[in-house]
Structure formats: structure tokens, C-alpha cells
């Protein structure tokens, strides 16, 4: 079994798989280590499928806009899998004046960095999506947003990276990193010692513990997000939907089912049984939220629910790029529940960063050492 490569990636989620794919395309030898038994077993296959710019922190916008312009439109052909990418816009819905304020503020800041997003009133919203109830009084509308299938996209990156010769090893949880002669060198698991000239830590929530072994601590914690899916319904609409206070979000899939994610307000205080398990409160709460916006869906049958840990950072955006103290070490973690849509751009830019030391999009504002105490 191969244990040495130019780059060792810790984490077989969409970030790890995408970075491995773009590195392999540049002729770089890569090993990907996944702690669980399955590729893409964390947030990568548990999210709601948004490929969205609106509603994001402006520090993330240049990256996600780059991906939507340059990578998403041809991703299905590139990965030889149906990513089910739809670019039919995102409605972020509001029902109160407070919602209108939140949405207007987000839209204004996004427009300042060049995103086409604007506020529309209730009638315009219903002209775009006639199924929405009269309770909706406004929305932000971003026509270049969309959605895709996180399962086929993540596994598509894996399939293609593997085809290009990347070594993937599952069931290999990393316990320690080791620095040798001032550079990152070894990656330790209970079974093996791997060696790489460069190491990328993209292990979601587990990134914190792994990075701690070389003295790097990124303030992040877990929060349980939950989703549900309905049986297939007749085709209704193609937009991605969200709400001002993020109480639910979702879309209708190619299959016809509706995938909705949401929250109960208690996500940071859920039990941790060692595996993400739905709480009894959240899915019913998501259903109540959906029915207020979409009365027509009250009779749609729920066939499945699931949950996933989100890696939440104290300022809501990821840590990305080089680690100053340790040459050869890179991080990509704390995606705060919205890492899917941005993942192709991150994989491609990280691969460039590792090989050439440069990126097309400036990652400076997402550097891991931005966290400061309040006084």
C-alpha cells in the first residue's frame, strides 16, 4: 500500500476529493485519507445542495462567484456524472419588516462586491414562483444562483481523481501530524505512518483536533443540521430557496423530490451520540416552516430525514490556505454549513496554491490566523 506522496490530503469529503482531482490533473501524486468508511460521509453528502452566492459573507463571495462562472457550468461533463446543476436563481424569502431589513443589508453588501442581487416585492416573488403563499412580502433575488446534487458531485470528484491515479484510503482516522526539520512531513493514523511534502487538512470538524497536534488551533465547534426529502412530486419550480432567518432552505431535485434543510433553534445544544442523528423536534419544525411558505406541499409525503454536523467557526466563514508557522501545511475547514457550492472553486484554487504558491482569487481574508480576542 502506498504511504508516500507529494501531497497527503486528510479528509475524503468534497473539498479533499476536489483538491485531489485538480492536483492529479496537474500531474501531482496524491494520497487521500478518510477517517470514516465512506467517501464524502460528512457535510458533503448531508447538505441541502445550494450553489449560492447571495446570503454569503462578502469574504467568501469572490471564491464562490469564481466557481459559478468558471467551474460549475461544465462540471457534469468534466466529472462524467450528472451533477444535476441548475442555475435558475435563488429567492431568499421574507415575511416581516425585520426580514426585509436583514435581506436588504445582505443584498447591499453583496452588490458592493459585484454580485447581481436585488430586493423584490411579494408580487414579483410570486411571478417567479407562483406556489409561494401571500405571507411572503419580499425576497432577495439572485438570478445566477442555483443548486446541484451533492452526492453525485462529491462522488464524481472521487471517481475521477481515483481514475487519474489518486490513492484513496478509507477507515484511516488521522491522530497526529508531525513536523520534521521545520517542515510538515508525517501523517499518523492508528495503522500507518504516511509521508508527504505537503499536507492539506480538510477534515471538517475533526480538523481542529488534528491541527492541535502541531500547535494550530482554529476556533470552531459543532452544530447539528437536519434535512428531509419528500417523495417525487410533479415538477413545480427550479429555483433554490432560502429564508431571511434561515429557518429552512431547499429545492426540487431532478428526481422530483423536494430536499429541504432547516433548523429548530437548538442545533448547538443537540446530543452528540458520536454520530449525527436527527432530533425529534427539528423535522416537524421544518415541515411547519415549509407549509407556511408552500401550502401546496402539505400533502407531500416525507420519505427520509437525516442529519449532519456542521463545522461552525466563530465568524461564520472558513479557514483556508497556508499555515505560516509550518511550511507545507494547508488548511480548508470550518465551512459553516455552506461548503458545497463553493467546493469546486476551493479545490481548484488550493491545488494551484499547493503547486505554484499562487491563487487567482485572493484568500487573504480567510487566513486561519484572523481570530483575535475581543480586548
Amino acid at each position: 500500500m502506498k504511504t508516500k506522496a507529494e501531497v497527503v490530503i486528510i479528509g475524503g469529503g468534497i473539498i479533499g476529493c476536489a483538491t485531489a482531482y485538480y492536483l492529479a490533473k496537474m500531474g501531482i501524486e496524491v494520497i487521500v485519507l478518510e477517517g470514516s468508511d465512506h467517501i464524502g460521509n460528512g457535510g458533503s453528502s448531508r447538505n441541502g445542495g445550494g450553489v449560492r452566492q447571495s446570503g454569503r459573507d462578502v469574504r467568501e463571495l469572490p471564491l464562490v462567484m469564481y466557481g459559478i462562472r468558471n467551474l460549475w457550468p461544465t462540471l457534469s461533463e468534466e466529472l462524467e456524472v450528472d451533477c444535476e446543476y441548475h442555475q435558475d436563481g435563488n429567492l431568499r424569502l421574507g415575511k416581516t419588516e425585520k426580514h426585509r431589513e436583514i435581506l436588504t443589508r445582505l443584498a447591499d453588501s453583496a452588490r458592493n462586491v459585484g454580485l447581481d442581487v436585488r430586493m423584490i416585492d411579494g408580487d414579483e416573488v410570486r411571478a417567479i414562483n407562483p406556489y409561494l403563499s401571500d405571507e411572503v412580502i419580499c425576497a432577495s433575488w439572485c438570478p445566477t444562483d442555483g443548486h446541484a446534487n451533492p452526492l453525485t458531485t462529491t462522488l464524481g470528484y472521487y471517481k475521477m481523481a481515483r481514475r487519474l491515479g489518486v490513492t484513496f484510503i478509507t477507515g484511516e482516522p488521522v491522530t497526529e501530524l508531525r513536523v520534521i526539520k521545520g517542515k510538515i512531513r508525517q501523517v499518523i493514523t492508528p495503522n500507518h505512518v504516511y509521508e508527504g511534502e505537503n499536507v492539506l487538512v480538510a477534515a471538517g470538524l475533526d480538523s481542529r483536533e488534528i491541527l492541535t497536534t502541531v500547535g494550530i488551533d482554529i476556533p470552531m465547534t459543532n452544530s447539528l443540521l437536519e434535512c428531509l426529502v419528500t417523495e417525487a412530486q410533479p415538477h413545480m419550480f427550479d429555483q433554490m430557496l432560502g429564508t431571511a432567518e434561515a429557518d429552512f432552505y431547499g429545492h426540487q431535485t431532478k428526481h422530483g423530490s423536494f430536499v429541504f434543510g432547516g433548523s429548530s433553534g437548538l442545533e448547538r445544544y443537540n446530543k452528540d451520540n458520536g454520530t449525527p442523528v436527527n432530533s425529534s423536534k427539528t423535522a416537524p419544525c421544518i415541515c411547519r416552516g415549509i407549509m407556511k411558505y408552500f401550502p401546496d406541499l402539505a400533502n407531500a409525503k416525507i420519505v427520509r430525514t437525516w442529519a449532519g454536523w456542521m463545522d461552525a467557526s466563530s465568524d461564520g466563514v472558513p479557514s483556508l490556505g497556508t499555515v505560516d508557522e509550518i511550511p507545507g501545511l494547508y488548511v480548508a475547514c470550518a465551512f459553516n454549513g455552506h461548503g458545497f457550492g463553493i467546493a469546486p472553486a476551493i479545490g481548484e484554487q488550493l491545488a494551484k496554491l499547493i503547486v505554484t504558491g499562487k491563487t487567482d482569487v485572493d484568500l487573504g481574508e480567510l487566513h486561519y490566523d484572523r481570530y483575535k480576542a475581543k480586548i
Partner: protein
Amino acid sequence: MNSVNDRSRDIGPFVPGPDDDMLICRCEEITKGEIRKAVHDGMWTLTEIRRYLRTGMGLCQGQTCSRLVKGIVARELGVSPAELEPATSRVPMRPIEMKIFANEAPDEREDG
């Protein structure tokens, strides 16, 4: 399970079979050939197969086909079906209307 699984292990080439057109997952209309090809694309666990192809994600949630899928994947990998862990079963056990699922359970304590 968490056992080390090197996804580069050689499982031989994909050889087309005479029954590749046979429907295995009837809810989602997935054939034996699609499942066998997915194994050669690297989908080596039943969870990955399910996420990649949608086997067992339809109305019956895999209650009909999951054993058949397991047998096909095990044979393709050259391992015993007992070595493959089933994909996770998810709530609810039967499809439930959104308006029903939305109801909170009644507080039974008041009934004594």
C-alpha cells in the same frame, strides 16, 4: 466497521454480463449493470452505492432491494456479503404527509 480500505486495490476489469439489464432497485429503476459499473468506479460501500445511484432511496427505502444490491457488490469486490455493512435506515419508517409529520406528539401525561 472502520477498517483500512485501500481503494486502489485491483478488483479486475469490468466484464459485461448477460443479465446487466436486470432491474434490481425497482423504485428507482437501477439495473445490475449500473451497480456493477459503480463498483468499478470506486463505490465500494453500500452507502456510497446508494448515494451514487439512488438504490434504496425510493418509496420502499431499500426494503426490497438492499439484500440483492449487497450480493452484487460483494461478488464484484470478491468479498463475503457479511463484510459489507448495510446503509443506514432513516426515519420515518413509512412515508408520512408533511402536515402529519408537522404535528407535535400529544402530551400523554395529562391522560394519566
